[in-house]
């Protein structure tokens, strides 16, 4: 049993960023890591994955990408290396192979049981990740057992899949990237598309995520926006980080021969039913993309920076078949596997505190949970829109650690 001022759960980029700020304020702390540093990055990502943010945007508090390819996108191995180097750089107090089995409330704050120790702490930072568990639509369980299906958490590469056609469900960054890779490998893909976010990889010669940061969109705060619940549930944008900075939208995929279908709504025997709302989902995404491009154009004009950027352009509307089929007979169409790119959920099964909402997420405001001494990092849109990206961890961790430091000081005075 050990008592310590603060415990961070998870040695990913968010937990390490918190450690940086706690060290700055002189708060004694440790990081409990179930496996090794950047564990999820090492073990739960597909082989070809790269960061969505360009290298020049990759940074953590006091540390940034320093390689010779600022416009490139880190591979998973490079991302792991970056996070490991950061842990070393800040000399983070990480205890590896300490899986947290339970957290309970305690008169002194929290009692934590790991697979080989126990801790008592007045403050706890949950930085265990937003993508620990697969998330499926309710009808997923009705998929005939003869058809193998996997979630992106288990997907590594197309060779893993049986020969034949593949149904990819979901068109966020994950869904479109996997559809692209699997179709390219020679296994024809049918892609089921619900509400999605369309973005060009490059606009007016600049990376779109860099533009969104530069014009201030990624810095929009949680208390400035209209509908936070919605903003937190927006799917990741259709982006891919490839050396040729290729845009991957539904038109790109259609051109390759990927068949686009509506949202998967139901499975009845061998028949999959798709929504008739595909056209509207595409229209919403096109309109939203154009509003974003307009915001960027206006910013450039206001600043008088036209000369530094290419000319504005608008991209072709998403092409949707006139009457995309609403059903798919899995047997007749010879579908040999299904990928459920339908999202992720955090794993808080070890957290025995009544602070989860009805969707199983920690109730919090800007990372300050609805429980004294409890903090959250690494979820979507914590303090700012950029929370999802590695460089978003800095502001989130700074604000959370400021609150935490003040909480501990107030507590020790009282």
């Amino acid at each position, binding site marked *: 049993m050990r008592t310590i001022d603060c415990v961070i759960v998870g040695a990913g980029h968010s937990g390490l960023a918190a450690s940086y700020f706690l060290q700055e304020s002189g708060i004694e702390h440790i990081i409990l890591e179930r496996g090794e540093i950047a564990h999820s990055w090492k073990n739960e990502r597909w082989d070809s994955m790269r960061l969505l943010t360009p290298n020049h945007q990759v940074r953590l508090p006091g540390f940034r990408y320093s390689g010779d390819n600022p416009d490139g996108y880190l591979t998973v191995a490079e991302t792991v290396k970056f996070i490991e180097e950061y842990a070393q750089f800040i000399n983070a107090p990480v205890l590896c192979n300490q899986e947290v089995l339970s957290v309970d409330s305690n008169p002194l704050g929290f009692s934590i049981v790991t697979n080989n120790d126990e801790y008592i702490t007045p403050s706890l930072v949950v930085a265990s990740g937003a993508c620990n568990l697969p998330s499926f639509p309710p009808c997923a369980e009705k998929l005939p057992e003869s058809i193998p299906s996997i979630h992106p958490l288990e997907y590594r590469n197309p060779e893993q899949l049986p020969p034949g056609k593949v149904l990819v469900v979901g068109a966020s960054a994950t869904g479109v990237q996997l559809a692209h890779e699997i179709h390219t490998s020679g296994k024809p893909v049918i892609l089921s598309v619900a*509400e999605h976010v369309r973005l060009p990889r490059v606009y007016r010669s600049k990376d779109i995520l860099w533009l969104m940061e530069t014009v201030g969109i990624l810095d929009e705060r949680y208390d400035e926006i209209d509908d936070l*619940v919605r903003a937190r549930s927006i799917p990741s944008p259709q982006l891919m980080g490839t050396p040729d900075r290729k845009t991957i939208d539904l038109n790109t995929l259609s051109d390759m021969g990927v068949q686009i279908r*509506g*949202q998967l*709504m*139901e499975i009845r025997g061998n028949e999959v*039913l798709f*929504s*008739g*709302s595909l056209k*509207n989902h595409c*229209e*919403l995404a096109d*309109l939203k993309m*154009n*509003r974003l491009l307009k915001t960027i154009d206006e910013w450039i004009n206001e600043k008088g920076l036209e000369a530094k950027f290419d000319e504005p352009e608008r991209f072709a509307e998403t092409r949707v078949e006139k*009457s995309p089929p609403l059903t798919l007979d899995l047997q007749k169409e010879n579908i040999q596997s299904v990928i459920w790119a339908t999202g992720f959920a955090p794993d808080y099964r070890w957290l025995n505190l009544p602070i989860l909402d*009805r969707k199983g997420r920690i109730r919090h405001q800007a990372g300050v949970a609805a429980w004294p001494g409890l903090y959250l990092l690494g979820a979507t849109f914590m303090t700012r829109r950029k929370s999802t990206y590695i460089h978003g961890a800095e502001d989130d961790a700074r604000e959370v650690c400021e609150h935490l430091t003040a909480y501990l000081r107030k507590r020790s005075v009282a």
Partner: protein
Amino acid sequence: MTDTIIDNGVNVGALLDAREALTSAPEAGKFTWEASCKWINGTHSRSTCEAFYGLGEKQSHKQEFTFESDHPEVLAAEDNGATPVELVLVGLASCLTAGVAAVAQRRDIQLKSVKSTLKGSMDLAGILGIDSDIRNGFDGIHVHFEIDADASSDDIRALVAQSQKRSAVFDIVTNPTQVTVEVN
């Protein structure tokens, strides 16, 4: 933003309050809508809507509303009312239109006029049992909106798109729904 007051007759404040209230008390948001129907003669029937359930208790319209439905003379009927499939189009049109008004109010867009025409196409070879490969229902629905409002054409398109996204009837007609029918 303009200084003029935008009024489409939608109480957005109340709707947002309701959303807030139902987020914290999800049970109150469980509604059941009802219709009762009585056969008159031939293909003519009369349906009424009055009671419904919501906010945790039985509710009621201010008055009972009545809908006649029948088939036209070309289908050997007396044409005492719109066909049931036309009533589906009416439901979709009304739902999308209400959505356009609500979204416009929320986005501070003054509507001047909103008109729509809906076309649902079907091949009667389905319902008449001539060809089992042809479905009974619409093979497609086409909605055309004509909207005059103080907004750009993209903003108007966005109103209509958002209205579809939030529409109950749009969801009902585009997505499968379990229907259980019991007798006596």
